[in-house]
């Protein structure tokens, strides 16, 4: 996997969810240039270490509930950094009860998705967002 060509950066601590997500994206050939990191700390390192200036992902998928550095903190960093300020970020969460929806949008998230329990609906959601952001949406250059 070439490091300088990344379509999607997936930050997800739950390996099952990560696997389900990857499986769905792969099924539709959207995971060819995908990096999966297990928590926010790794993501910070990946994105900003050494003044980090490798090519940026076209889309960042963030789980909100993560140990160490949470999705919201990470979002805050991404949006405050000049390079990643405009990178599309989609928040994925397990809970409808999340009190942070509003906060995420305030911080400039591009989309906020509650992961359905139902597998079919989950698969559909992942497929849709992957296709939308990678194929339909025109990213900032």
């Amino acid at each position, binding site marked *: 996997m070439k490091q300088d060509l990344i379509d999607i950066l997936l930050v997800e601590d739950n390996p*099952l969810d990560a696997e*389900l997500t990857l499986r769905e994206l792969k099924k539709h050939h959207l995971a060819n240039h995908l990096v999966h990191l297990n928590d926010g700390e790794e993501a910070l390192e990946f994105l900003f270490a050494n003044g980090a200036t490798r090519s940026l992902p076209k889309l960042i998928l963030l789980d909100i509930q993560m140990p160490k550095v949470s999705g919201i903190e990470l979002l805050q960093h991404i949006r405050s950094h000049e390079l990643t300020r405009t990178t599309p970020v989609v928040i994925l*969460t397990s809970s409808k*009860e*999340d009190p942070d929806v509003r906060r995420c949008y305030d911080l400039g998230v591009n989309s906020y998705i509650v992961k359905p*329990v*139902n597998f079919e609906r*989950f698969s559909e959601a992942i497929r849709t967002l992957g296709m939308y952001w990678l194929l339909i949406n025109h990213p900032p250059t």
Partner: protein
Amino acid sequence: MFHLMGRDISDFIRKLFDTSDWPPRWHCGKWTEFHGWLYIISDLLIWSAYFSIPLIIIRYISRRQDIRFIRLYFLFAAFILACGSTHLLDAVAFWQPAYRLSALVLLITGILSWVTVFYLVKYLPMAFALKSSGELETEIEQRKKAEWLSRDSERQVQDLFDAAPDAVIVINEEGHVVKWNPKAESLFGWPAKETMDRPLSDLIIPQRYRASHNRGLARYLSTGQSDILGKNLEMQACTKEGTEIDVALSISPTVTNGRRLFIGFIRDITWQRRSQEEIRHLNADLERRVAERTRELYESQQLVQAIVDNSAAVIYAKDLRGQYLLVNQLYCELFHHSKEEVLGKTDYDIFNREAADAFRDMDLRVAAGNQTLREAEKVPQDDGTHTYISVKSTLKDARGLPYAVIGISTDITETKAVEETLRKSLQEVSDYKFALDESAIVAITDQKGIITHVNDNFCKISKYDREDLIGQDHRIINSGFHPKTMIRDLWVTIAHGKIWRGELKNKAKDGSYYWVDTTIVPFLNESGKPYQYVAIRADITHRKKVEEEFHKLNEELEDRVNLRTVQLESARKEMEAFAYSVSHDLRAPLRGVLGFTSMLEDDYGSQLDSEGQRITSIIKNSTLKMGQLIDDLLAFSRTGKQEIVVRTVDMGKMVREIIDELAPVGSDPHRIEWTVHSLPAAHGDIHMIRQVWVNLISNAIKYSGRQEPARIEIGHFTHEGQLSFFVRDNGVGFNNKYKDKLFRVFQRLHKAEEFEGTGVGLALVEKIVSKHGGRVWADGEPGNGARFCFSLPEGRYDDEYI
């Protein structure tokens, strides 16, 4: 000749003063010095004498006014003067021989001499007719003798004139004084000699009368008529000093030696006048004083009459026989007799015998003792017998002997009644006071708050002796418990004359506290200012203790409630955190189970037999159901903490939308007959009310699903005064004995195999409706459908109608 004479005359005149034709006399002849100078000096002596004589004559003439033959005198003077002049020229001729001039002067002298002779001859007989001085002397002598003879009568006249008691003044036709007697001198202050020949008007006639005086005199002189002559007149005259005096005057005309004179007799009547005036004044004064006395007498009589008549007492006077001399108005009114009727009558004519006897008895005792008595008397009147206090005394005549009895009687019947009433009132007050003292704690203070009276109860509760309290103010029992403002309010209230009520905590002598329910009543004086305060108190110490305990308990309770609230709040927060983690952490494994089961089916489905596929299907369904359960549970929990926003909700529109959503036309798996009545608007949170309808309608659809046809009716009604809605179906219904369980969470009346459900829907409905202040209830019958109702109160609005 005449011609020559003429020339001579002209020469003569021309050379009148020429002395050249002759030598001076000294040189003509033989003149010795002596002879010459004798001649000259003699001539000059004659000349000077002849010059003096005419001057003397002229001077004599000029002084004498009664000179007769005056021309003769002048002729004499001129003749002598001329003679003198000839002698002068004679002397001068010794040096200046002006013989022509001498001749002329001689001629003149000669002419004058002859004229004199002529006149002497002419007047001589007249001169001889004049008496000679001897003749005159003889005549004078004779006259003196005649005067002597008439002297007695004249002296008598003069004496009369001098001694006349009146001023006598005689004036002539010109109005000038000719006589002025001594009395006139003394009366007018003018000495007689100063008045002679002066106009009378200047002397004694006041300025204002002078013109008429002069007019009157002139008129008389010209016409002989006069208004005043021969009359007695009274008028004003003025004295030398200028003061005016009143005079009586009579004027008589007379003729003396052919001249008309006027004699005036004048008498000073000033004093007389003054006396008359004084008498007149005295008379007037006397009359005025009489009138004044009369008026005073009348007024004092009126005053006495008014006092007597208006007196609230009965006033009367009776003579010693008992006959009325006087009664006042009140007497007349009380006993119904006019004054005229009463006067002259006795008590026996007016009153009954018994009363009259009593009155007479007292009258007699007064008269007999000539003293003043004061006694009570019974008097019969229209409304019964009245009691009077009578004061009677005698009236005395000039000798000090009593001639009448006068009495003043005051009705004291009413006073007695008032006294009785007062006595009763005092008794009543005393009774009240007794009752009050028995029941209440009483203290009285003066207007400054100094205690003047306390009752036994006060002493008992305050544990002070009466002596400790009297003279003190209430600070002695002040507990210090109450704020100063309250005590100040108390004082302001009662100082304004208003009653103050309140509960006070006081301190007893032993330091213990007691509570009293206090009423302070200000007693007001006539001007409305408090002069003392009466404080009436009741012991409420026990009640206060109970109240205090109650209050304390209440406070404790409140503390506990607050504690519980805090606990509850923290529990609620824990619950929220729990719900969050449930939704987050429970859903993730479920998703995993579902996801990997699906992957199993996808990837290994061909290797599973039918039993294997049944099992994976069960795994998936159970997991899905669990997810649904979690979602419902969270929704239920969320409802509890959500704030409701009340708006006006169009229920009809909302219900139609929900029906379209839940059972779209055409997609309906079973036929449903809908009966939706028109629904009024209601008030509530639009999202929550919607949830209620969704739950109730979807339940109706669900439980009527086996009916053919299914009937669902939606409408409204008024229940217990509240707007209520219902959803009725003809479904499976339920047994009414379980209806209490319908609205509890996770309580289900049907098996999951029969009807799907989590047991949360109706619980949520109940929760929402209660939150709105409404109520839910249901009734049903197994197999015969069910009716679910909910009421909504007329809500408050959080915003305007939408």
